[in-house]
């Protein structure tokens, strides 16, 4: 559209063309030239996507680094490096340049590119910027000197380097104590010491472009660089966050007046126990930090598999073998996975449950998996198991998670509720797993990605039958877990089903013959995005209460450590919620008051915490009231979050106790895994 101002700007040109074109003065080539100039003015070179062409070669040079060691540019051979010129006394753009380098360093560390890419800051004030001064300056910038070099040297050498090699101006009147004029540009160098691009280092957009160009160059120069990443560097503030000690001190102080019994401590004895299990997770979790359901982790199940009176541990693993560790007593364990036959080595395992499905007094085991048949093992009571998944009819293949055994029809046999999440994986294969959708957490908005949970009736004879249709149970929530609960006190177990991408659901048991969905009638306002649930009598009033953890609202915006007990300040956008938005923004504690009557009392009893997952309940201090442990926090690069240990103060409130009882900080006294 032509605007008035634009038209006016062309007017003098128009008059000039007219006068030149008039009879006897007409020059056609002049008009063509003018037109082409005008056209050129509408598109500037800056609009075109820049190519990473070679802009020049930097001859080999030698300087001295912040440690006083010789630095030769040949050591950058094969690396991508970014150069800038600064000086420590500079109060103009240098602080912004160095701050941008600090951010770039963090970004490169997060991506795993650190080491493939190096940073170089060269002083233009070498008389003042000795190696010692540069070391102090770099330390203040949180520089990792292994791959960020601060260089100094002879002034003439540096001047020539700036002007002749890197093509950047640098000026100083007469001597080094005077004002120095230099360029604040960042220069991108390739592995052959060639200049590939320049960036205005103090502009955020330019830095974003630089980061993208680094990846482009890296992909060209070292196509498999991502495969070479073995471990991502963990920043200092994540390894050892300062607020942990402050939190511990505050908790200790708060216990000066606490009445709840706490004269005991937990001690990490994993090393002494002999347990060598380590969780092996998929690349989506450990390398690309993809926001998908793999980052929900996997389970541990506990039962006495060999009837020796000691509880054994079954660890579930995403990659490789699950492991069954037999309890030897005295805190010692041995790995009996191979003889037990429950390794399930292929594909990703998610969850596991022990239950006695045939009432023979021996525990059996069900293992849920991702896009591989779920496994049902029948136990012999001697620590050995037989795979009966197929004959039992429970070898569902999908994106399974929870397995809940309960007797919904009161026939004396444990039935199985299998909770399925939804299709969160693509057809792309990673190493031993299917890659997740980048937008996995909006999967509930794609009807074709829904997977119904399944209620299996135990028919006896080690066989099960899918009775979804027969009992009217049709649920496509993105669910990871559920629990039986007799909410209406009729003696038949109902189902409270979690939804990690929507409201929770509630199904009322119709005397074992069917299920009636009564979600909003009984629980008008549940959390949105729930992960863990436990039913227990919190206040010993004879009514079973419901404690539900809500993780997903904790990821809407960053919460500082001192805000962890606060409810989230906002909802997700309504289009994403796909609900009316009327939900609890955080953990939910429903205290049962009467038949089908629950009261939400979460904040009143201090039941909120940060980024929670599963719940365990037990009377830890033997005072007759059930206490709670909540596994919490999120995978790096999120900040460290604490596990929560809540001591039950006589059914009146929960008391934060994780530091007092030795659960936090975790092993090694640091947040680093």
């Amino acid at each position, binding site marked *: *559209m*032509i*605007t*008035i*101002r*634009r*038209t*006016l700007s062309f*007017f003098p040109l*128009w*008059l000039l063309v*007219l*006068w030149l074109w*008039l*009879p*006897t*003065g007409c020059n056609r080539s002049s008009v063509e030239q003018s037109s082409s100039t005008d056209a050129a003015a*509408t*598109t*500037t070179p800056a*609009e*075109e*996507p820049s190519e990473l062409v070679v802009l020049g070669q930097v001859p080999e040079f030698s300087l001295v680094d912040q440690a006083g060691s010789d630095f030769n540019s040949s050591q950058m051979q094969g690396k991508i490096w970014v150069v800038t010129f600064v000086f420590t006394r500079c109060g103009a753009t240098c602080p912004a340049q160095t701050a941008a380098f600090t*951010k770039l360093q963090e970004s490169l560390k997060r991506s795993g590119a650190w080491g493939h890419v190096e940073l170089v800051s060269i002083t233009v004030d070498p008389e003042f910027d000795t190696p010692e001064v540069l070391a102090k300056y770099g330390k203040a910038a949180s520089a990792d000197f292994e791959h960020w070099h601060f260089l100094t040297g002879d002034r003439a050498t540096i001047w020539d380097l700036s002007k002749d090699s890197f093509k950047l101006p640098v000026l100083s009147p007469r001597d080094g104590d005077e004002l120095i004029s230099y360029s604040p540009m960042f220069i991108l160098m390739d592995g052959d010491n060639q200049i590939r691009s320049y960036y205005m280092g103090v502009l*955020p*957009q330019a*830095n*974003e472009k630089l980061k*993208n160009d680094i990846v*482009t160059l890296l992909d060209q120069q070292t196509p498999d660089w991502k495969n070479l990443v073995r471990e991502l560097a963990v920043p200092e503030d994540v390894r050892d966050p300062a607020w942990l000690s402050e939190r511990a001190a505050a908790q200790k102080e708060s216990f000066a007046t606490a009445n709840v019994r706490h004269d005991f401590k937990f001690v990490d004895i994993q090393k002494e126990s002999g347990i060598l299990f380590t969780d092996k997770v998929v690349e989506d979790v450990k390398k690309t*930090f993809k*926001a998908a359901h793999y*980052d929900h982790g996997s389970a541990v199940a506990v039962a006495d598999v060999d009837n020796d009176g000691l509880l054994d541990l079954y660890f579930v693993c995403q990659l490789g073998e699950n492991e069954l560790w037999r309890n030897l007593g005295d805190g010692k364990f041995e790995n009996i996975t191979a003889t037990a036959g429950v390794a399930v080595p292929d594909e990703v395992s998610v969850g596991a449950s022990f239950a006695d499905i045939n009432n023979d007094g021996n525990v059996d085991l069900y293992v849920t998996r991702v896009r591989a048949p779920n496994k049902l093992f029948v136990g012999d009571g001697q620590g050995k198991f037989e795979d009966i998944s197929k004959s039992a009819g429970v070898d569902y293949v999908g994106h399974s998670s929870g397995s809940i055994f309960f007797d919904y029809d009161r026939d004396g046999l444990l039935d199985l509720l299998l909770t399925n999440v939804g299709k969160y994986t693509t057809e792309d294969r990673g190493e031993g797993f299917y890659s997740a*959708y*980048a*937008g996995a*957490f*909006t999967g509930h*908005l*794609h009807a074709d990605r829904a997977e119904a949970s399944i209620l299996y009736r135990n028919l006896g004879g080690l066989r099960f039958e899918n009775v979804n249709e027969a009992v009217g149970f049709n649920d496509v929530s993105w669910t990871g877990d559920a629990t039986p609960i007799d909410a209406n006190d009729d003696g038949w177990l109902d189902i409270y089903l979690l939804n990690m991408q929507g409201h929770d659901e509630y199904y009322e048991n119709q005397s074992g013959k069917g299920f009636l969905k009564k979600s909003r009638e009984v629980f008008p306002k549940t959390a949105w995005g729930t992960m863990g649930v436990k039913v227990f009598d919190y206040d010993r009033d004879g009514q079973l209460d419901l404690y539900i953890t809500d993780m997903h609202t904790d*990821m*809407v*915006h*960053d919460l500082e450590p001192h805000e962890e007990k606060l409810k989230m300040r*906002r909802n*997700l*956008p309504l*289009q*994403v919620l796909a609900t009316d938005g009327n939900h609890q923004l955080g953990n939910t504690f429903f205290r049962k008051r009467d038949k089908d009557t629950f009261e939400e009392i979460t904040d009143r009893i201090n039941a909120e915490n940060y980024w929670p997952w599963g719940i365990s309940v037990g009377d830890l201090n033997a005072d007759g009231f059930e206490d709670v442990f909540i596994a919490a926090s999120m995978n790096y*690069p*999120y900040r460290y979050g604490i596990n929560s240990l809540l001591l039950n103060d006589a059914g009146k409130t929960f008391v934060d106790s994780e530091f007092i009882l030795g659960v936090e900080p975790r092993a090694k006294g640091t947040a680093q895994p």
Partner: protein
Amino acid sequence: MNFPLTRWFWGLLATSSSIGILLWLFFVQRATSDPYGDIEIEVVGSEFVFYFRYPGVDRVLFSEDDRYGSGTLFVPEGANVHLKLTSLDYIYMMEIPAREVYEMAAPDLVFNAHVQASIPQTYDLLGSQMCGYDHPGLLGKMVVQATDDFDRTMTTLSKQSLILKQP
């Protein structure tokens, strides 16, 4: 330079005609340079940056003369701005707090957000990666411009997509 009389005559005629045309453009163009009623703008999240696609001169989005920008979202004053949000990789949250715009950009989905553009001024435009972490590239501005200024801004934007990594 020596101009003959006929040339002065034609020159004056041409000049006066031009002034006439200019006056016509001034009044007629102002009358026909309609303000934007509704305008659609696509917002695409990619590699932790928001990219914007604007309708070009024809005021029709997804046509050949569309223009592309990033970082700063330009909108014409008084317009009903319909944002169509999507993403090429991760899930992003986009927010313009002062105008109560709060929406998500996700792969394989298009979310619609609406903002009624005010008089010319500048607002903060915030962004984050859902279940991820903050990225400076997702922070920008929404700039409300007078219609003429908006049109002129459009002519300075790229004619090609700025997104470096297409899926």
